[in-house]
């Protein structure tokens, strides 16, 4: 091992077969080695290994455990006494680059092959991926998932089917699930109907897009600022404030709807976009998820920046925010989902300020003859949040991993 960039830490090595060794772990870009106390030869040595901090370190902020994953996916666990040093060089970009099997290790493999060196990889200890799973259980799980998955997806498929049905198929007995002659007539009819209405369809669309965009952006900035100080600084009142926010996760807009109406009318916000946008800025779920996620950021990152003389706002804007991109996406999807689906009939009266969902409800009121158009409008509205989720799923799940409530 080269001397440059080598970091070391005292600790315990736990083998999968139960053996424990006390000693020192040394690691650098090329590999890692564990030396038992007073011995010159390492107990184990890994070349081209990928070092990976355990997930709970990410949440807890201090590294006490370290998992080494080899190319063949076998693992070694270290319990370190002074783990921070190892963390420093390993993956400071963990937040926006989720660790995948093809990273540094593979790159080093490639380089070694170019140099014509032999690669040493230790044998892994557990061969089967799921050693304690029965085949019957696996089959049962697949059957249940298929059964319930079909039930979950059926109404959505039926909705899309209905939106593509020509008029004669909408009223055929028995109704087909999927049209035999799909047509986009319903969509074009929808735009014709909406074009004849008092307020043009595009107006509803613009309203909804405006409310969603402004509400989401403001929510992202304001809630992230609050989440940042709640997660990373200790000040009187912070904990109590967060506990109150956690309790308010339960109270939906319906229950607070009436007093909110009274307050908004006092503030003169009724019949303005602000009546929808300002409450969205303060949505508890966004602050909650962002704070939980930010807690996982290493405190060392912030301490280092403070020593370098960065102000709190600079730390927030150029160090913390770029590192919590997965949480942004999660906040965005929750915010978009609630704003996009709002009908706002109680706080907005002027026709020209109403939203897409409200317009949909009006078409629906047109009765059975409009079944196809309603389905078409529904498909348009529904597809936006679902598509956002499909494309950001992995980031969102990364955020949700820290969503738990600790009491």
């Amino acid at each position, binding site marked *: 091992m080269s001397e440059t960039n080598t970091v070391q830490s005292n600790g315990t090595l736990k083998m999968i077969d139960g053996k424990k060794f006390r000693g020192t772990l040394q690691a650098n870009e090329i590999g890692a080695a564990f030396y038992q106390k007073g011995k010159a030869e390492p107990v184990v040595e890994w070349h081209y290994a990928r070092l990976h901090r355990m997930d709970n370190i990410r949440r807890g902020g201090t590294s006490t455990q370290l998992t080494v994953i080899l190319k063949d996916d076998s693992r070694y666990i270290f319990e370190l006494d002074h783990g921070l040093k190892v963390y420093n060089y390993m993956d400071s970009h963990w937040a926006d680059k989720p660790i995948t099997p093809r990273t540094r290790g593979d790159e080093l493999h490639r380089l070694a092959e170019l140099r014509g060196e032999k690669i040493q990889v230790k044998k892994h200890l557990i061969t089967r991926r799921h050693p304690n799973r029965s085949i019957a259980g696996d089959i049962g799980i697949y059957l249940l998932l298929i059964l319930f998955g079909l039930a979950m997806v059926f109404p959505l498929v039926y909705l899309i089917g209905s939106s593509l049905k020509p008029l004669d198929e909408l009223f055929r007995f028995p109704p087909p699930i999927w049209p035999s002659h799909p047509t986009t007539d319903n969509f074009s009819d929808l735009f014709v109907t909406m074009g004849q209405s008092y307020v043009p369809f595009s107006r509803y669309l613009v309203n909804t897009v405006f409310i969603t965009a402004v509400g989401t952006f403001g929510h992202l900035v304001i809630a992230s600022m609050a989440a940042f100080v709640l997660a990373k600084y200790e000040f009187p009142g912070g904990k109590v404030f967060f506990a109150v*926010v956690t309790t308010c*996760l339960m109270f939906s807009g*319906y229950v607070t709807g009436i007093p909110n109406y009274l307050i908004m009318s006092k503030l003169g916000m009724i019949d303005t976009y602000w009546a929808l946008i300002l409450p969205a800025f303060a949505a508890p779920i966004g602050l909650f998820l962002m704070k939980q996620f930010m807690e996982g950021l290493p405190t060392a990152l912030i301490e280092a920046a403070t020593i370098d003389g960065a102000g709190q706002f600079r730390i927030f804007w150029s160090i913390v925010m770029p590192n919590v991109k997965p949480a942004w996406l999660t906040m965005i999807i929750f915010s978009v989902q609630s704003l996009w689906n709002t009908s706002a009939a109680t706080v907005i009266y002027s026709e020209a300020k109403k939203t897409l969902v409200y317009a949909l409800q009006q078409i629906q009121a047109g009765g059975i003859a409009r079944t196809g158009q309603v389905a078409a409008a529904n498909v348009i509205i529904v597809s936006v949040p679902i598509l956002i989720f499909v494309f950001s799923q992995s980031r969102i799940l990364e955020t949700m991993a820290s969503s738990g409530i600790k009491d």
Partner: protein
Amino acid sequence: MQHIQSIASKPTASKSFFSRYLDMKRERMAHSWQLAKRNKTCYLFLAPYAILFFTFFILPIGTSIFYSFTYYNILEPARFIGLQNYVNLILQDEVFLTAIKNTFVIAVITGPVGYILSFLFAWFINELPKWLRAVAVVIFYAPSIAGSAFTVFSILFRGDAYGWFNSILMEFGIIEAPRLWLTDPNYMMTILIIVILWMSMGTGFLSFVAGFQGIDRSMYEAGYVDGVRNRWQELYHITLPSMKPMLLFGAVMSITTAFNVCDVPRALCGYPSTDYAARTVVTHLFDYGFSRFEMGYASAIATLLFLVMILCKKAIAGLLGRVGT
């Protein structure tokens, strides 16, 4: 600073318990004040959110509690009437009793069932290979973010023969004539519960899926060495204890959806529904608040709902405290 030092240097042994307690309090206050002064920018960061949060979440709750003791119809100033609203609610309002019964039935069935199903399916999905997992998560999660998509059930359960469910049943000869699924009080609740369950794989489900993926595999490997033989043992001894925070989060989300049922009955069963058979506490609250403008009465309903939800959360947190121990 000097103040703190002077307190700390005084001999405490001669003082009474009470004055020592006061000293301690004062010292702690001084310490908090120091901490607050050192972190003043923190309050600046928190302020925009805190102000909005106070205005649109805390203040409404306070307003609700306040108006629940008054008669208030927006036009006249509020008149204090003590507990009259609550007395009327419980003793005289028969529709409210129906609403409570319905909300209770919906909450008791969809809350726990939705919660358990979310957990089970998150667990099952976790056993799938990675690419399939992503597809399955979308399939199960989509209904809950699809917003108004549930209105498709008004086509599926339509009262005439063109309704999909009616046509299937008639095809197989189970019923002779179409049934009015959404307007007949006998069927309404069942259909509501089905629809709400369909939408119940929400934020909590997502949190569970992420929780399962977040558990380090080395714990399972260690468990395997220690003799965990099947997936049930693994679930109970390893998975559940490390997922407690997610379980509590999921429970909070379940309470929210179970008690705040409002859109679904309004859109599917009509508002008001036949014989008030699909009335829930929240639709009742809407009726009094936005149709009859009896704000005091509506506030009393909201206050009761707050109380019940907080109690539910406390009870569940207590229950979860014992999981896996």
